[in-house]
């Protein structure tokens, strides 16, 4: 099922949660809505589910106007961060709920319900829990049951609101992989909300980055990570070093001193220099055209070494953290030069 979101705006009193958002989700796609809290990502998901209503704009499921349908009529599967399993029902009854809720003439027979619930519990690998109650299960198990319950009604779309947000790191990683595999098996159009960039990059076919009610960038995980179109996305996705610079006639300056890098066609004025911590070379001593600073701290275990470098500026200092796979040829307290090898410059926007 293709989902079309056109010009959707949603306000909560004075707060604008979504501002004229447009988004197309293709059939069978697994899309992540990624953004910090307050970016509007959950509101967008709830609008698709019919749990919230936009102030203006339209939502299309295929050729059908979804806003004409209530939540109960949309045939979407919704998975909540805190599972929302019915605590007084067994796991079996939870999964069967949607089937039993159908109008009498569409309701499957009791054996058919038993078969379907059994199949779904097999799919989520929790057949043995059928007669248990939700509070007898772990968080990860509960979330898988919640997913089975959502899938039982054969939804046209699967919507997941921070599905792994309440789980601990290890279970989270397992479930992520498991969701990815599940999606490959059943190919249902799925949208999930997350504030965890690692989760979005690992699981989704396509990532939609939101900030303050706007879609900032959409693309494959590779695209948003490697070719961010704004300093926000650069900083939000992956580790990032950001420096405020000015561009004058193709020359880039940090705190008044020129840096030996290309302006990448950025017009004159303020700009943000963004680089990955591992794309910055570090040299002992002060080098012309480099960023001069003092090493404050060296740390890191395993393959990566990290260095905290304080760049001197007129108004004080600017701390940056860089990392390198090699042993650093410097010590704490030493003066060093940083030279970005690979970086991006983003002009400051009016906002």
């Amino acid at each position, binding site marked *: 099922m293709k989902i079309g979101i056109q010009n959707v705006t949603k306000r909560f009193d004075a707060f604008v949660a979504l501002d004229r958002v447009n988004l197309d989700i293709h059939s069978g796609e697994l899309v992540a809505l990624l953004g910090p809290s307050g970016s509007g990502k959950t509101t967008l998901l709830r609008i698709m*589910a*019919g*749990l919230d209503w936009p102030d203006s704009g339209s939502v299309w499921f295929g050729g059908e106007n979804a806003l004409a349908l*209530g*939540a*109960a*009529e*949309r*045939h*979407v*599967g*919704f998975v*909540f961060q*805190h599972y*929302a*399993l*019915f*605590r*007084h029902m067994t796991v079996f009854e939870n999964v069967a*709920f*949607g089937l039993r*809720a*159908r109008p009498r003439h569409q309701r499957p027979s009791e054996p058919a319900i038993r078969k379907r619930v059994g199949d779904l519990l097999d799919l989520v690998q929790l057949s043995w829990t059928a007669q248990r109650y939700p*509070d007898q299960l772990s968080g990860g198990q509960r979330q898988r049951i*919640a997913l089975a*319950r*959502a899938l*039982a*009604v054969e939804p046209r779309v699967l919507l997941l609101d921070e599905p792994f947000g309440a789980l601990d790191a290890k279970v989270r990683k397992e479930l992520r992989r498991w969701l990815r595999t599940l999606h490959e098996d059943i190919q249902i159009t799925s949208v999930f909300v997350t504030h965890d960039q690692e989760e979005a990059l690992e699981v989704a076919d396509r990532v939609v980055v939101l900030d303050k009610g706007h879609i900032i960038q959409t693309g494959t995980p590779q695209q948003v990570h490697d070719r961010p179109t704004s300093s926000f996305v650069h900083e939000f996705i992956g580790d990032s070093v950001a420096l405020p610079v000015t561009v004058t006639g193709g020359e880039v300056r940090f705190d008044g001193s020129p840096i030996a890098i290309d302006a990448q066609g950025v017009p004159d004025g303020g700009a943000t220099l963004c680089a990955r911590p591992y794309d910055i070379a570090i040299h002992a001593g002060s080098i012309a055209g480099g960023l001069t600073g003092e090493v404050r701290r060296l740390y890191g275990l395993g393959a990566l070494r990290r260095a905290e470098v304080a760049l001197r500026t007129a108004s004080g200092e600017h701390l940056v953290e860089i990392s390198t796979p090699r042993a650093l040829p410097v010590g704490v307290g030493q003066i060093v030069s940083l030279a970005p090898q690979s970086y991006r410059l983003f002009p400051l926007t009016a906002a």
Partner: protein
Amino acid sequence: MSFNPVIQSQETVDLLATSFAPALVMHRSRRDGRADPLWLQWTLTGVALFFLTIFIVIPLVNVFAQALAKGVAAYVAAISHPDALAAIWLTVVAAVVAVVLNVVFGTITAWAITKYEFRGKSLLISLVDLPFSVSPVISGLVFILLFGAQGYFGPWLQDNDIKIVFAVPGIILATVFVTFPFVARELIPLMREQGIQDEEAALSLGASGLRTFFRVTLPNVKWALLYGVLLTNARAMGEFGAVSVVSGHIRGETNTMPLHIEILYNEYQFMAAFAVASLLAFLALVTLVAKVVLEKRIARTTR
């Protein structure tokens, strides 16, 4: 007996000191700084038990003792007197109506307060508590002022030959009014804690509003609802003040059990008064047991 109370108590202290000294020393040596000393624990527990005995156990036992003072036959005769039976019947009717109405409206109120956002919500929450904060006499007077002969609707009611005050409808109204907060107050905190996610889940699974309410919301709050019913019933059967104002005290017609007890007592029929009172006391005991059971169930559902 002519012992000196001061010396007596001094002796007691000495006795306590000698007999508990080893225990106290041992206790102190094992002290971890958190526990109160043993003597304090025992004293406080003793004081509490003493007051419970004086103020609750003895009066309660006395109710039953007085009721049966002239034998079982007299007891049965007292509570099967037509006026007593009429009072029991009216009390049961008022309580049942109050329970049913308050379950319906209390649940709706709690639902509206916890599941929807609207202006004036905090005002509604305080209004729910109003019947608890006004004197029952005023609760009764309100209905006299509304429906009495001198009240706003009095003339119209008289013209249409409808009796509310000094009749059964007035008693039921007053009872419903004073018991309104129980159900809503039990449900509001629980429903607020549970949030609306279960309902949203049911809705997105295709369930209708009614199905969601009966299959999801109601089971989630059923023990708290029963608790509210229990308290509503106890208060409805025991209510005196508000009902007394609107009743008119017509024997065999507008007397509830508490009013009937008062009349019997005023007529020096102590045994009969205590006999009817024993029924209310028995209800209180049953309520108490049910309350403990329900509290345990509720604690389990909100875990």
